[in-house]
């Protein structure tokens, strides 16, 4: 035993109060996966509010034709920062964070395989966020070149300001963080499962996190190297992406979308995982076709890395390339459709209980299918040529990322909040939040399909007073404000419930995965003992020893 004096006293309580003597220190220095997970979630809420405010600025500017609420430069900064924030600092860290919190609990482990690496991953996200937002303090403001930062616009001499440099540096930090959490997840899931938790009994959420982690460690290095090359171009006069000096601007697009398309699945697969946990519990049935849900995830993971060129139909890769990538992209609809079918079949004939998590999960299926259908449409190159860079695309990916990922995130927050904090969230506020989100979301984005087909370009600062454009945009802006109100209610619900929420029992939803076996909030060491895992629903088997899911499994 070494006699070194710890810098920080060991945590005894699961959620140390910030007001205590070393309250702040015990969070900042924590390597406990639950505290790190919660810090991920809290910081994503902050970034979510910032990114949402940026979206509101965009929508105000577009509320009426020829409006000049902000300057074109600020407008460009807003949509760049909105996209970057929502993708890299909200959805990604939320899903990674909720994974960090739940994976060890769900597989019956005490912590992640590499707790310190876990803390590093989290703090790198914060560091990246600070770098990104620091650019607001530079003379020329943040990046104006879009979240895709296409070359040569993002290169000298077209962008001489510091914005894109901070942008690339910030995202590089997040990239390093993502790769390390990917590795951490993979090692944790492969090596730290409790006895009996075989790979085929993993909770589907853990399975999705595993596949996502493989995608992370495969594709983040692509974009991280591209960021490094972009920084070399910008700071050391290299010419990777500048055609004028023999570089290739299209190469940036290949790198960006080589990462960018799999990124869509990084953002949606863990969301699928959340939905696959919530729907069975609130339908009181085991998931329909577990192996199909798990297997189709692998198919999505593998397909996702091979179809990025469908983001580049308008580049001019040639008809042959377009045709191949159209077909390959449409294939993704198969494993995705399989999942939707499984969720619906799980609900079919179930005793459905519409608590807030289930409301969001149900709405997720509907909204996500909308986004998926427009996705299949724009996978066809000719349709893509008509709609590319219009509001149709904006509508499409908001249906996938908001209607999909964010709805699942809300479902997850309501579902696991009792476990995280030991208190229930208010159902009344939750229902208000849900209905305002559904109304606001569809009001904002559904109309944008039509605007897109009518030809309204994306990223446009303003537009002429064409028939209906003004009123349709105004409707969209009103929808955005309804969404803003729903987010305020959501944030208030969290704050209120933390203090005054009903005390949560260990397993308030009668769920079946291991995280519900421990106390709410879980003890510092997660579990004293873990029940034997003899099927996919360990807590069901524990409560119903005469009706085991896998009746033939026996203690050997």
């Amino acid at each position: 035993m070494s006699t070194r004096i710890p810098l920080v006293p060991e945590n005894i309580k699961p959620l140390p109060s910030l007001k205590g003597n070393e309250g702040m220190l015990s969070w900042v220095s924590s390597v406990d996966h639950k505290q790190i997970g919660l810090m991920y979630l809290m910081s994503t809420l902050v970034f979510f509010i910032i990114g949402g405010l940026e979206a509101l600025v965009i929508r105000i500017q577009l509320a009426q034709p020829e409006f000049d609420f902000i300057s074109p430069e600020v407008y460009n900064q807003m949509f760049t920062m909105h996209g970057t924030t929502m993708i890299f600092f909200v959805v990604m860290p939320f899903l990674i964070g909720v994974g960090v919190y739940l994976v060890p609990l769900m597989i019956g482990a005490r912590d992640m395989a590499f707790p310190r690496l876990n803390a590093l991953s989290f703090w790198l996200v914060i560091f990246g966020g600070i770098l990104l937002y620091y650019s607001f303090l530079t003379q020329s403001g943040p990046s104006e070149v879009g979240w895709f930062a296409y070359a040569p616009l993002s290169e000298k001499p077209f962008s001489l300001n510091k914005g894109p440099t901070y942008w690339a540096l910030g995202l590089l930090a997040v990239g390093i963080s993502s790769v390390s959490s990917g590795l951490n997840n993979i090692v944790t899931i492969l090596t730290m499962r409790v006895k009996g938790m075989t790979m085929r009994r993993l909770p589907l959420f853990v399975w999705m996190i595993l596949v996502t982690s493989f995608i992370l460690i495969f594709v983040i290095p692509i974009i991280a190297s591209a960021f490094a090359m972009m920084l070399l171009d910008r700071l050391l006069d290299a010419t990777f992406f500048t055609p004028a000096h023999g570089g290739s601007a299209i190469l940036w697009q290949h790198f960006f979308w080589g990462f960018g398309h799999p990124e869509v699945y990084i953002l949606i697969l863990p969301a699928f995982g959340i939905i696959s946990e919530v729907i069975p519990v609130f339908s009181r049935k085991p998931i329909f076709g577990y192996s199909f849900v798990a297997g189709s995830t692998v198919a999505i993971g593998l397909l996702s890395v091979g179809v990025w060129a469908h983001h580049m139909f308008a580049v001019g890769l040639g008809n042959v390339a377009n045709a191949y990538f159209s077909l390959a992209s449409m294939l993704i609809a198969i494993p995705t459709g399989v999942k939707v079918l499984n969720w619906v079949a799980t609900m079919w004939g179930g005793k459905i209980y519409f608590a807030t998590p289930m409301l969001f999960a149900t709405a997720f299926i509907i909204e996500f299918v909308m986004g998926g259908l427009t996705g299949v449409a724009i996978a066809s190159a000719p349709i893509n040529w008509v709609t590319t860079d219009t509001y149709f695309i904006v509508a499409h990916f908001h249906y996938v990322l908001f209607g999909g990922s964010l709805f699942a995130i809300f479902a997850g927050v309501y579902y696991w909040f009792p476990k995280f904090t030991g208190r229930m969230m208010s159902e009344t506020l939750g229902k208000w939040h849900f209905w305002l989100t559904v109304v606001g979301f569809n009001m904002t984005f559904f109309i944008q399909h039509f605007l897109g087909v009518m030809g309204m370009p994306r990223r446009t600062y303003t537009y002429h007073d064409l028939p209906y454009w003004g009123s349709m945009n105004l409707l969209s802006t009103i929808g955005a404000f309804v969404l803003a109100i729903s987010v305020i209610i959501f944030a208030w619900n969290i704050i209120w419930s933390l203090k005054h929420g009903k005390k949560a029992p260990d397993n308030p939803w009668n769920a079946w995965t291991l995280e519900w076996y421990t106390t709410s909030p879980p003890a510092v060491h997660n579990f004293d003992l873990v029940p034997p895992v003899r099927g996919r629903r360990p807590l069901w088997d524990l409560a119903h020893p005469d009706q085991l899911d896998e009746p033939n499994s026996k203690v050997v």
Partner: protein
Amino acid sequence: MNIWQVLSSTWNMEPWVLVSALAVLVAYGLGTGFKFTKLSALFITGITIYVLALVSPLDYLGRTYLFSANMIQHILLLLVVPLLLLLGIPKTLAEKALAIEPIGAVMKVLGNPIVAWFLGVGSMWVWHLPSLHESVLANDNLYITQQISFVLIGMIFWWPVFAPVESRRLSPLVSTLYLSSACLGCTILGMLITFAGAGLYASYMTPVDTIGILPLLRGELCLTPGVDQQIGGLTMWVPGCLIYLAASMVTIARWYGAPEDYEISSNSGAEGLLTATQENK
């Protein structure tokens, strides 16, 4: 000539193809006792595709006019035919063969996943080196060597995933890694060929138009050298990769279809409760 005339007149019944196919079939029949089963149907389909790939217009067009036809032939010979042949070998036959000392020893080396992976992906890369490809087109013996090597190496490549003897197979998750990394190898080469620009393989730029179909190919079918090479590269890239992907899905499906092993420990605490996993300190 119109396209149907081309397709009907460019069959090339090369004796070595027919003889090799017949010899393999007879050997297979002797090994399995000439019984028609599901496995033998797979094996015969494999041999049929092998013959078709080498005697049909695909072969003629690929050797003279079209790189894309050549690539489709290569994918069939390296990925499709060997897979069907391997799946068609009954377990008992494979066990008997592996029990023979030299065969068992050789397969131990070649069946090693690292060796098999490099042979499979390497043969794709090496045979598509432009200079080697030109030599293959010019030299008949080298051409025959290439085709046979594709099939043999293809079987070695698939061995760690689909070996008839289960104990020789990789676990499903490792198989998926094995196949997806091979897909990556294929993708990179496919990308290089697709985006290299026309003329990577010089002989397809100005083929010797012995049967006078060049105007048909270049004009009516729009198969200019650039488009032709793109189709070739993309065929390796996209459908080639989909074969690996489909194979991984098969391994996963097989895994989920197999019964679960019972992995409950008996030395657990009260009421069968277990200690949570923690870091090894």
